[in-house]
């Protein structure tokens, strides 16, 4: 096979000619910048990349990439992306969605696309608010949240995006943050290389309607104590002085422990992103500040069969068995009889 040398692209090559219309200071800028930045190294030609989105601030994303793009309707991006990927599995398909788009109106599609394990990448920008509709609480907003639609505080119990993804049999589930650009770039790259649905929750600051929603994990002073960076095969250690860890207690529940005083690294949980059994990954997905540090990185990365491959394999198998169908065969495919 002749391999055509690809011209080395730069992040700039992935910028479209459209003016970016997010509010100044919005976390979306950073996510866009990191995405453009990792693209050249993936070695995928621009024309083979498709960004699909739904509705919301995050969903403007495709307009700002110089790839193929589809800004669809509210919540339906995973379904549109499914059609694109099944029609042409050679395309690199990405979905940009938000906490409202992906988890509220589009919750159904999100769950199903993840369980089917299409080889697509889903970036869920979680800002815990509806931005585009100007500030109502979202499915990830905390209880008691005061917004325009909840002046007395929200009585809606929030959900955990990563728990949903793991519950939906996600083969790649990760979390990163808009302000941690290096980590974000690494996670995006890992997602790109994963064979299967890659789901990344990205903590994103909406500085207009929900400024500081992630302050507890982004604040320079405190973040080392409030986040847990996961590394495969390594003990779960965190803290400014890397002196705290996570271990399982007798009730099989996670607990934060101080290292020292007889507690050694070996007593801690070791992260295994490849574990076939998702219980520990699910446990991590439930860990929330202030009781726990919030995990960052890849919670789960396992191999699983690809949906679109299954579809195409069946077509190939049917062809191998019966030959490629023709119009002639089609018309004669039932019980026929001849009238003289």
């Amino acid at each position: 096979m002749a391999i055509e040398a690809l011209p080395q692209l730069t992040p700039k090559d992935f910028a479209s000619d459209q003016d970016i219309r997010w509010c100044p200071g919005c976390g979306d800028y950073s996510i866009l910048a990191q995405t453009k930045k990792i693209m050249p190294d993936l070695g995928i030609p621009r024309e083979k990349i498709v960004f699909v989105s739904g509705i919301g601030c995050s969903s403007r994303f495709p307009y700002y990439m110089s790839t193929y793009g589809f800004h669809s309707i509210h919540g339906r991006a995973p379904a549109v992306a499914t059609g694109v990927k099944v029609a042409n599995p050679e395309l690199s398909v990405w979905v940009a969605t938000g906490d409202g788009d992906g988890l509220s109106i589009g919750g159904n599609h999100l769950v199903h696309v993840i369980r089917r394990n299409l080889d697509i990448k889903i970036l869920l920008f979680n800002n815990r608010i509806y931005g585009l509709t100007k500030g109502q609480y979202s499915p990830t907003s905390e209880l008691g949240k005061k917004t325009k639609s909840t002046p007395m505080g929200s009585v809606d119990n929030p959900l955990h995006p990563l728990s949903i993804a793991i519950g939906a049999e996600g083969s790649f589930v990760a979390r990163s943050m808009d302000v941690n650009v290096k980590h974000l770039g690494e996670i995006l790259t890992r997602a790109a290389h994963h064979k299967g649905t890659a789901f990344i929750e990205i903590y994103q600051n909406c500085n207009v309607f929900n400024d500081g929603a992630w302050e507890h994990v982004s604040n320079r002073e405190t973040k080392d104590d409030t986040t847990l960076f996961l590394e495969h095969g390594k003990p779960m250690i965190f803290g400014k002085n890397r002196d705290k860890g996570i271990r399982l207690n007798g009730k099989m529940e996670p607990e934060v422990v101080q290292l020292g005083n007889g507690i050694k690294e070996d007593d801690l949980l070791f992260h295994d992103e490849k574990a076939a059994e998702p219980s520990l990954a699910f446990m991590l997905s439930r860990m929330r500040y202030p009781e726990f540090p919030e995990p960052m990185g890849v919670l789960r990365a396992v191999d699983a069969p690809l949906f679109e491959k299954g579809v195409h394999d069946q077509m190939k198998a049917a062809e191998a068995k019966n030959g490629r169908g023709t119009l002639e065969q089609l018309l004669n495919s039932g019980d026929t009889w001849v009238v003289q």
Partner: protein
Amino acid sequence: MSTDTLVMPPSTKPIESLDEVTVRFAGDSGDGMQLAGMQFTNSTVIFGNDISTFPDYPAEIRAPAGTLAGVSGFQVNFSSHEVHTPGDAVHTLIAFNPAALKANIADVRQGGIVIANEDSFGKTDLKKAGYEVNPLEDGTLSGKYQLYRVPIGKLTGNALKDSGLGAKDIDRCKNFFALGLVYWLYGRPMETTLKWIDEKFGKNPQVCEANKTVLKSGYFYGETCEIFPSSYKVPKAKLPAGKYRRISGNEAAALGCIAAAQIAGKDLFYASYPITPASDILHTLAKYKNFRVKTFQAEDEIAAMASAIGGAFAGDIAVTGTSGPGLALKGEGIGLAVMTELPVVIIDVQRGGPSTGLPTKTEQADLLQAVLGRNGECPLCVIAASSPSDCFHAAIEAVRIATKFMVPVILLTDGYIANGEEPWLLPDIKSLPKIEIKHPTGGNGHPFHPYERNEMLARPWAIPGTKGLEHRIGGLEKQDITGNVSYDPENHERMIHLRAKKVATIAQDIPLQTVMGPEKGDLLVIGWGGTAGAIRSAVERVQAQGHKVAAAHLRYMNPFPRNLGEILKNYKKVLVPELNMGQLRMLLRANFLVDAIGYNKIKGKPFLIAELEMKIQELLATFLETSQG
């Protein structure tokens, strides 16, 4: 096995010749009526009659046994000439229980044959069906019909007493006793069914033999038993020569989609969520994977629509199928396809509405939903199929228009033609329309404009993977030519007009409307969709009575054929029979200011020829009298 070449002895009883016969099998949904009906249909088409069938089954999978809600029926109309409907009045009703009798007796013609399974007319059976006294005994039937009380259950049991089968398995065979009896009654050959039994139960010789035995017992019962004075024959029809197959509307729609993709040289992507009565399209397509067919059972109707849009964006022939409630759910997605100008075909197999309505019954009440049911000014093309086999051609036409004009097309069929079957003369491949698709290729150095239009106002279908044509589309208003997001008021109005004009332009690309009958006259009967057969037959009858009546049947619902306005003016009155409250009539009035008269039936059932004929005669009488007097 010796039975494979079984030749039935010639009947020794008198044989009466008939032109056209309608048989209905009716029983509990567990009684195997659909199977008996299908087998009768198979044997009859192979015998050489023209046929039309109408399965009528309950919405519940297993409604309480013996109740009216659980009655399942299968009607076959067969004839020595061409037939266009499954028949009006029933010549022979096979009623497996009191409920089946009660639900169907009104459709049996005076003097028709009623074969009742008297084993199922016990006290509790009668009570379940709401009979105070046994209708087989109180004389209500015997005067009006030829009533035959046949202990089908007992006779089946006798035939199988040495078979080694349990009582339950034996009971399951009784539909074949009835089938055998009806085979005798109408002089049908049994070979097709015997062969089918071999194929179906070949692995289980005991069951295989039992079914054959029962079938033949039914046949011989008719021949030797004293109760039937004669049998009937319906000579072969003179059908056009050629190769035929039996086809239902849903099968035909599926084959049409595959054929269209084959003609276009592309893959077919079919996304659908299970819904009655459209699921058989998905089932059929799933069997044709070696024809470059990708089927996707989506998580819901919306996902089916959205994934079809994604499939179209990526360059497949994209189709989704549904019924009324699903079409409502797809509405927003269809709007996206209109805005992004992508070729998606949406097949709506209409059923009784509103809401969940009557899932297994037929209706034509989605026309306005199809034409108008979306937010904003959202025009698209709507076409309708008129018979089971016509679904094949309509599906090809839908794909042809969608891809030529870059517009979603809704294809309306209905439960009646979707499940009904008829013999189909296989079309000559060369006669099928051409579907030529040219995707632009990149590399001319100019910036690519996804909303630049050709002379048909269609935009280019540039597909991902094509170098140099990377572009973004979406549901926000598009700037003319560039396709960039635009909030400019002038541009918005221009785009609204452009999208409308594009759909209107389709009228230049479709055939002129034809009429059956005089070009000018007293009455035009205009219909659409699955009522074609009944309207045509009724109008033919009235024409034969010397009336200046014509029929026009619409395939193109939006846009209408460009000569339709002229046609409407050529008749004193216009009658619009529809299985709804008058939706086509409303469109005709709005578009052509014509004082169209409606004839509307909303019972979940198709038109009878006789009721249409009567309506036409009544209407003619009113104004012909007054104009003459």
